[in-house]
């Protein structure tokens, strides 16, 4: 059984320089209260792994503006001009990863695989410095697994066993990131008693979740 904690208590767990896997796609499916608590606490030197850096005023985008992000591993920063400026100025290190490769690298980290063999990125700047493996005469990039110190997830429903159920396009990276971090913190729109989420609707089993954020 998980005890629901306040966002500021969750933020205190996260030390300077932590690597955070953050669910969400342009902020949809991102744990907004948790991110706000991290911004309020001011923890710096963070590495953010997320689909994108959102916009400067929303979700992980705000942590970029506040200067708390040292490094980001993302597929897209096009709608966050602050991030682009910081990258150009060398104030922030940004590794741009094809979206499909990003999710598979995180999955590999969580599923105990040694890496990802993909044709995506071959013949592009993404190939630079990477091992190429040939399988049955075809070439694939070997992309390394990604793991985080924390996964910060958002879901629609949670129960107090930690089971999570997502809706519509708010799934995105959340169910994959749930396996790829040392500590998993989930922020749900609704927390329900154990047994209220049918087993077939659970997309992240509670055994993966360490902490739940209490209701707002």
């Amino acid at each position, binding site marked *: 059984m998980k005890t629901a904690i306040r966002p500021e208590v969750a933020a205190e767990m996260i030390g300077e320089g932590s690597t955070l896997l953050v669910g969400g796609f342009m902020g949809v499916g991102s744990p907004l209260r948790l991110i706000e608590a991290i911004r309020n606490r001011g923890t710096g030197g963070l590495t953010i792994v997320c*689909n994108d850096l959102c916009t400067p005023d929303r979700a992980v985008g705000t942590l970029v503006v506040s200067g708390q992000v040292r490094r980001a591993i*993302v597929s897209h920063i096009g709608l966050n001009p602050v991030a682009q400026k910081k990258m150009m100025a060398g104030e922030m290190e940004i590794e741009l990863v*094809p*979206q499909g490769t990003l999710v598979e690298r995180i999955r590999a980290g969580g599923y105990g695989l040694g890496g990802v063999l993909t044709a995506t990125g071959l013949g*592009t700047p*993404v190939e630079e410095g990477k091992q190429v493996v040939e399988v049955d005469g075809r070439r694939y990039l070997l992309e390394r697994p990604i793991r985080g110190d924390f996964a910060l997830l958002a879901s629609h429903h949670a129960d107090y066993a930690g089971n999570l159920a997502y809706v*519509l*396009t708010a799934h995105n990276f959340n169910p*994959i990131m749930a396996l790829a971090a040392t500590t998993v913190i989930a922020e749900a729109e609704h927390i329900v008693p154990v047994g209220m989420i049918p087993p077939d609707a659970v997309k992240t089993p509670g055994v993966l979740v360490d902490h739940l954020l209490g209701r707002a």
Partner: protein
Amino acid sequence: MDAKEIIARRVAREIRPGMLVNLGIGLPSLVANYVPGDSGVYFQAENGVIGLGARPPEGMAEPNLTDAGGGFVTAVPGAASIDSAMSFGLIRGGHLDMTVLGGLQVDARGYLANWTVPGRMVPGMGGAMDLVVGARRVVVAMLHTAKGECKIVPECTLPLTAERRVSLIVTELAVIEPTEAGLVLRERGPGISVDEIRAATEAPLHVAGDVPEMELGA
């Protein structure tokens, strides 16, 4: 009819009933306007939905249902929510029948550059590289020129999106098919001559026989 409408209408005719299609942001997204609603086509958004519908009526947006550009959408009956792993599994595993993408450059090999202008525009590739590598057909929908420069070039000077030859290039002036032998001019834009297309195109174009004018539908 403006240039973008010509392109969107022509691309729409590439889409067959029952296909699974991903439309890029911007010009490609206009294509949906010209696909008949009863065609049984499913649109995928890479952020996680199959069966993307139109924009919701005022006041009926659902915050957890957006397209890959972050705009509110609806879903058709029979829609499915998928996570990012499944979404890109569909793309990379060859399950997507077609993607329509914008382009910065396409070259004589049929290679596409559409994600970065180093030093000037570095937004990240998002799902573009996966789409070009994985979709069964890759259709590039773009204006023929940008700021007076032709976008169909002998060899891309911008970083490639993938090493794959795209399936078709549709501009307001021409429909061009990249082949093993180079770029083949298939159709002319409304009222445009073959010579005008040649003059406007930096890359060499093969022309075999008569080149019909695009059909754009009603």
